[in-house]
């Protein structure tokens, strides 16, 4: 269980007290010179995504027999061809936008990702995916460790977490702000005009105060100072008005803020967004318009395609990699309440302008034979083929240009995973 942000925030005190160069100008300059930056958007699908309903082996006879009430009919899936094991696959019918991205070669689907003895617990599972360390789930997050590896001083806006509190993925000695809404990330005042300006100027001056011999108070001062230092850059994102507009879901609005931050070049490189509700134990309603899983796919699809098109229009697509994860996949056989229980391996997605799209790895064969090598747990769950840390390694080495062996504490590089 995670109990311990305390361990790393101690170090955060120091990180707050440094000054930093204005990255806005730097990145403007860099862009003017035609060089690209590399942004990473980590997308957490919380609750345990039923990947079998997202990337569907529609010709596998056991897909239908083991899921009599929730299987999508073969004629309705969005066909995306066959993988290297010649299994025909289709996307969920609602993923029309992702199908476009797939057809443009900018969506990679990495099948059967997971790890040995995969946890079926939400907490432990999320901690493992977040730390990339099944043996020390209280470690800092894998992206957090990347941020900590950057040369200091690290800009307080290097990361942007669009959820209210800090996700484990981003836990780091480097403080990552939680900015659920750019519009709300402003210095409010009970007054207007000169009075409000005077308050803000006072708050800014006080924030630079450093209490002596009171480290706990100094820590709060550090947060106050970092907030004041990042206000204007974040506020500039609040004025971002993309066209066409994003859907009015929390997920899509978060992606809009991410696109805004990229568009305004405020210096942020790592973003965290989440879309929830994947813990579909009952009434999963995969293929009914308005059904639970159908809606999950709608939210995912509509947000991502809006984001993709927006970045494309702005010429930012090549700067961006979106990587998805979920704590586990789900059982193959549906349960007694037309849902699916916690399972193991799942599908990860990578999406972006420099992604080498397509199908990676092989689909599970759903034959309920205990000897079936693509399954585990008496053929109840999907067995992993690609360790999720190999996917992280590819992102760290191939996109972020760092050393995955160092950051993951081992060599997880794998051939045939060149999606980026």
């Amino acid at each position, binding site marked *: 269980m995670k109990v311990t942000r305390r361990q790393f925030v101690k170090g955060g005190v120091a990180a707050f007290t440094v000054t930093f160069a204005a990255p806005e100008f730097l990145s403007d300059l860099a862009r003017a010179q035609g060089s690209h930056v590399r942004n990473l958007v980590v997308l957490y699908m919380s609750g345990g995504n039923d990947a079998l309903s997202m990337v569907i082996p529609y010709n596998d006879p056991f897909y239908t027999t083991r899921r009599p009430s929730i299987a999508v009919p073969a004629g309705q899936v969005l066909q995306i061809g066959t993988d290297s094991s010649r299994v025909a696959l289709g996307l969920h019918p609602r993923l029309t936008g992702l199908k476009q991205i797939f057809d443009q070669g900018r969506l990679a689907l990495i099948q059967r990702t997971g790890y040995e003895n995969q946890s079926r617990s939400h907490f432990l599972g999320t901690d493992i995916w977040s730390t990339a360390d099944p043996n020390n789930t209280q470690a800092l997050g894998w992206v957090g460790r990347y941020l900590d590896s950057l040369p200091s001083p690290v800009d307080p806006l290097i990361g942007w977490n669009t959820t209210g509190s800090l996700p484990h993925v981003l836990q780091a000695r480097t403080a990552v702000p939680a900015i659920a809404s750019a519009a709300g990330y402003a*210095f409010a005042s009970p007054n207007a005009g000169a009075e409000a300006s*005077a308050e803000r100027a006072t708050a800014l001056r006080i924030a630079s105060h450093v209490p002596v011999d009171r480290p706990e108070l100094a820590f709060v001062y550090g947060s106050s100072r970092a907030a004041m230092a990042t206000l204007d850059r974040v506020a500039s994102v609040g004025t971002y008005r993309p066209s066409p507009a994003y859907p009015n879901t929390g997920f899509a609005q978060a992606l809009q803020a991410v696109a805004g931050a990229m568009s305004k070049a405020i210096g942020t490189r790592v973003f965290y967004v989440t879309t929830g509700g994947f813990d579909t134990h009952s009434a999963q309603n995969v293929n009914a318009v308005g059904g639970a899983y159908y809606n999950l796919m709608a939210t995912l699809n509509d947000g991502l395609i809006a984001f993709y098109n927006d970045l494309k229009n702005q010429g930012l697509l090549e700067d961006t990699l979106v990587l998805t994860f979920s704590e586990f996949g789900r059982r193959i056989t549906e349960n007694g309440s037309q849902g699916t229980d916690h399972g193991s391996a799942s599908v990860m997605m990578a999406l972006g302008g420099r992604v080498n799209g397509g199908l990676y790895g092989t689909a599970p064969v759903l034959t309920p034979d205990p000897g079936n090598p693509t399954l585990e747990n008496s053929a109840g769950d999907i067995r992993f083929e690609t360790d999720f840390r190999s996917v992280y390694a590819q992102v760290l080495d191939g996109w972020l240009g760092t050393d995955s062996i160092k950051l993951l504490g081992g060599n997880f590089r794998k051939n045939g995973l060149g999606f980026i």
Partner: protein
Amino acid sequence: MPRTSDRRIEHLLRRAGFGARPDELELYGEMSVAQAVDTLLNYESIADDVDTFIAKPGYVNTTIRGQFLPQSNIVDARQRWLFRMVHSDRPLQEKMTLFWHNHFATGYAKIAGTFGAAEGARYLAAKSSEDPGKVRGQLEMLRDNALGNFRDILLNIAKDTATLVWLDGRTNTKAKPQENFAREIMELFTMGVGHYTEADVYAGARVFSGWNLARPGTAAAQHYEFIYNAAQHDTAAKAFSFPIYADGNKTIPGRTAADGMQDGVDLINALAASPTTARYLAAKLYRFFVSEFGAVNASFVERVASVYLQSRYDMKAVMREVLLSPEFWDQSTYFARYSWPVEFVVRALKDIGWVGFSVNDALTPLSNMGQILYEPPDVAGWDAGESWFSTGAMLARMNFASTLAGNQRFNLAKAVKAANASRTPEGLLSHFVGALVTAPLDADVTSEWSAYLRATGAWTGSDAQVQAKASGLVHLIAGSPEYQLV
């Protein structure tokens, strides 16, 4: 009558409550420390009528959409709890309820996702008197037992509808034992991590097999409630790595299915009686009531743990020891905690004013500060301490201070005038530094505030100026780092 200084009473009420309203400061100020602690502990002698004042003039507002239904609408339940924190005359009961809510952290979303929104609120927040089926939600159970017996609370939690959903006990059967509750009761509710083995978790899951839920029908009065499902109980013996019985025996014997519910009771008794649990709780109480700075005081833990065991888990005796401990009253522990968002918000309301403000307007700010009541992030509860102070959360606190100060600008100006403190900037400053007590202020902070009062023109003491400066200054004080400590 012995009087106690404001400074001590404020400390006591910041910890054993949510700060001090002016009337509380007066009431407790007339008492000795021992009397004040007694009054806080023996709250049964004070009427539990706080809910009857909701929507009455003179109290903080609630925002009502159609009907106010805290028993079936989680937003209303959150408003009711905040209202209680502001206005209850039993502050320690509300504070302990928050402690238990964090300790047995149960999240609304999963209950609502399982049984629907109205049922989710019902199993967490309904009072039995207002529910058609007399359902008492988890929070009400904790509130009723806020200073009760820990073993009883633990047993109630094990049978609690919301817990059985939240930790999946409802699906714990002999064929498919569910480990979630068994793990958390040892890891988070009693002994703490490192004091049990994985084998204990598996055995614990079997102990609680058959502790499920049932719903007799679909009528409004019907509801999911605990049922011991004998047919789903694993009847074999269960061996643990720690003593279950007073004689040191570590094995729960095989029992018939009909008698098998006793397994769970035996395990709960053992966990409640464990000296490890005693120390685990004592350390957690130290962090919540005494200090988050520095190491947990070992002597405090031993003494409080010993009272816990000697009193056979009586939380009132335990809390008496906590609140009268020398550590609690040591000056170094004043302001040695990072306020939780609800502590900050409620104290600000008590210090700044509430008439004309709706607690509904605190809910989004609280979420931005990282705390949604009835929605802890996971079963481990909130990450407290420094973790509350991300940049976004700190900004949310500063902005709530602004919202409340703006809302109260007329009341603030009126109070300043009544106190005859509006004639000079110094008068205004000393008035509000007195009203909003903070951790010790360095001189350059107060001089900045003083400069702010003079920043936009000569002092005239006009109504408009006093309103602007009073609200501006209150915003700056309540949004200061010093005010975030309690």
